[in-house]
């Protein structure tokens, strides 16, 4: 009997095994600490340094939905870093990102939202443009002639964030999230080389070995290679205490969310309208709100209360910032509006505004929970890797044993 034949199983069992090895740890999120390597640290330092010198950051998002699982966490970590430090960023989209523009803008809006940053003043998005090498060359010469307008059609000269930047060399750090070696080489040859820029890359795991000689030669200053790179970046952010939302535990945030909502409901200003808002909620949320009312805000400890107060402040502060254009986009709002009778219609904007605050706060809550998405994902990764390594080692042991036995057999 050959020992190795136990490995001759149907490959579907292998598939199921991998699937479970990845899924189970995901159900029980347990982020493992990651030790950042030098390339990731270099990127952090590069960006941090640029921000502290008052320089702006230039980013190029060149990922689309297929590679998003690896590259979106990178983009998120870097954007959080920039926004939390009060940095300003210009983001563009090129060749590989054509199909991902929606995702990019969503991500930027989410991150800006988390840290209360606004479009135009703190960041802007330059939509997809065809061309690869030429685009890099043009950017080196002039940003505005390459992209006269941003995604919303505003002149770059009228945007606060782009007002005093002319070309690539005016930025303190340039980060490219892309998926092919050719793109990396293009950026290095026509962007980094001529202007001696601080340039970092976020690349897919399988491209990382290919760019090794560029980090070696110092052309690349900072590299996030695959999901682990993103995880390590998140680790640095965590270590530096930048991720403010992390200070709240998810439970705290949930209570803050609910308490703020209940206070709205019990608010005499909201009085009769509260009912309509209440009706617009899902039963699960209603139940949770009732719980908070019953359990009471007072059961929380002092530290949590301070945090909640701070969080509430942030929410309240943001109430007035929401532009009216946003109001029409809120879906639950439509429902409420349709429920309102004529007499109340004039007050509808206020309610809607509040609803958006709730929604946005909810989003921030979700964001806080997925703050370390890459780190959380590294746990299933680790487990799958270890399982695979053990399987390979065991399989080889069986194979070698079989071979030795066969040899012995044939000698006899």
């Amino acid at each position: 009997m050959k020992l190795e034949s136990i490995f001759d199983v149907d490959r579907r069992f292998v598939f199921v095994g991998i699937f479970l090895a990845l899924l189970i740890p995901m159900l029980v999120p347990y982020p493992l600490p990651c030790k950042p390597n030098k390339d990731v640290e270099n990127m952090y330092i590069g960006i941090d340094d640029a921000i502290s010198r008052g320089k702006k950051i230039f980013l190029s998002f060149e990922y689309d939905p297929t590679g998003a699982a690896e590259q979106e966490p990178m983009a998120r970590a870097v954007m959080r870093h920039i926004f939390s430090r009060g940095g300003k960023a210009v983001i563009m989209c090129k060749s590989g990102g054509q199909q991902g523009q929606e995702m990019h803008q969503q991500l930027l809006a989410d991150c800006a939202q988390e840290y209360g940053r606004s479009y135009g003043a703190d960041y802007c998005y330059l939509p997809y443009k065809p061309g690869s090498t030429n685009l890099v060359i043009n950017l080196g010469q002039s940003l505005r002639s390459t992209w006269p307008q941003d995604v919303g059609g505003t002149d770059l000269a009228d945007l606060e964030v782009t007002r005093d930047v002319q070309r690539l060399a005016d930025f303190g750090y340039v980060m490219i999230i892309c998926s092919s070696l050719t793109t990396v080489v293009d950026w290095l040859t026509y962007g980094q080389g001529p202007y001696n820029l601080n340039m970092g890359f976020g690349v897919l795991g399988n491209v990382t070995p290919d760019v090794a000689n560029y980090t070696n030669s110092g052309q690349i200053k900072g590299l996030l290679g695959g999901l682990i790179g993103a995880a390590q970046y998140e680790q640095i952010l965590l270590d530096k205490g930048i991720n403010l939302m992390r200070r709240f535990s998810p439970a705290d945030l949930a209570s803050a969310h609910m308490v703020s909502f209940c206070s709205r409901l019990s608010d005499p200003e909201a009085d009769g309208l509260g009912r309509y808002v209440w009706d617009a909620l899902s039963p699960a949320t209603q139940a949770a709100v009732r719980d908070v009312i019953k359990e009471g805000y007072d059961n929380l400890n002092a530290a949590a209360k301070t945090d909640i107060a701070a969080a509430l402040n942030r929410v309240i502060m943001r109430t007035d910032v929401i532009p009216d254009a946003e109001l029409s986009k809120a879906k639950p709002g439509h429902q409420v509006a349709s429920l309102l009778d004529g007499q109340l219609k004039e007050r509808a904007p206020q309610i809607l505004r509040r609803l958006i605050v709730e929604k946005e706060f909810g989003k921030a809550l979700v964001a806080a929970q997925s703050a370390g998405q890459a780190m959380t994902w590294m746990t299933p990764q680790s487990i799958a890797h270890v399982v695979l390594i053990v399987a390979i080692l065991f399989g080889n042991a069986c194979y070698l044993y079989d071979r030795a036995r066969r040899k012995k057999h044939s000698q006899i």
Partner: protein
Amino acid sequence: MNRHPGFIAALSLVLMLPAARSWADPSAPADAKPLPGTTYDLSAESLTGLGLQAMDKPNDNGTGIMLTWPRQGWEAPNALYQVLMGDDLAERLDALVDLKVIDAARRDELLGQLGAGPGQKRLFWVQETLASERPKEGSAVAPPMPLRSDYPAVFGFKKENDGYHAIEMIKFKRDDLVLHIDRETNDETRKLVKEVEARGLVNQIVPLGEGETTKVDLKQFSDAPKHDRTYYFALQRVEAGVVTGRSEIASAVPKDNWFAWHKLNLLIAMFVLGIIIMAFAWIARRNPTGLFIRRIGGLEAVDEALGRAAEMGKPVFFCHGPGDLSAVVTISAINLLGKIAERVGEYGIRMKVTCLDYLVMQVSQEMVRDAYTRVGRPDAYNDDDVFFVTGDTFAYSAAVSGMMMREKAGTAFFFGRFGSESLLLSETGAVTKAIQIAGTDSFNQIPFFITTCDYTLIAEEMYAASAYLSREPRLVGAVKGQDVVKAIMMTIIVVGAVLVTFGFMGFAHLFWPLTN
């Protein structure tokens, strides 16, 4: 070893303490800007001889000028060089400096000055800040400024290049005075336009926009030097906001060049390579004896693999990767396809060729048809067997792996340039227990082919493959020529590395590419 930036910077710190203090002082402006009202005084006393030289940038298309001047040992870390530029008489540079400090608040004032200004012609200026970065606290190294050694394509590898600054003027900011004026209706403005045009003070006159009133505007343009036109330059050094040096005026004419001399080594290398490879091909055709080509594992197995497919009556799959006809590996793959199709025709099996690029498909169709005809089986050819699947790689791999599963491929060939679809295809093939032979120069995908396929042609083996299969003297000769080229290269590398180790850079410099 005449470059000690640390020492120079330390010395400069000591010598320039007053200036140095200003950047350590947080109240001082970070970037030194020329003081308003500074005029460029061209009297002889003010020239401290910065030694500015201007020249046409060699080896370009006539839109570049090089400026170079000697480096001073005592440059403070916050030294800033400004280049003034004009395309007219150099004497007028003084007026330029006046213009450049105009800010938005003075726009209206400017209109009043229009009539009173000096009668000069169109002029513009540029300001190039070379060392705008403030060094970190405590660092003794002066910030990097472009040196001649940064432009080996222009100045070569001479040692003294480190002693000169150099910048390339290919694009420069230009500030134009734009006069917005209603030139059609108003008699008075028409008169003004005439006068302004005659004096040539304003660079541009544009008709008024909606709701605009007559005004003078300062607009920034970026511009490239135009060929065969004289440009004048002057240079001033500003340290901590104070002008500490000025140069004489230099001029240059950008010229179109007919040969890029910095690519001479490339041209020679190209000729040497080409002559060796073609000579060997030629000799081999004349004298096709004694041509040896080493065994290439994967290709030995082609016959065996096809034989087994024939035995089992299963179809053969040939997959082109997503590479197009411009990729050399695709051309090699098409050649291999021709050779394989011949044997497929002999065995009388069915071969499916799946393509991701329609031009590749067309060529493959003819290749297969000709191969079948050559072995006397033109009837075996069916246009639908060599087909384009889709241009999307994942749709392609889904479709092809589906086909391989359904039709139980007996043998699969993966030749060409591959991306991530390599594993999807070859793993599917491994499950159908097909004999698989792969060949690609896509470095990333080779490990997957090695683990899942029976044989893999690694990178260059792929190029040699068609020579190996056909044994055509010309091809085999070319392979031999390529080996000779590699041997020469290895010799150059060893000699070069040894010389570099002992400190002789000259030999290595012969082979350095001078541009990106």
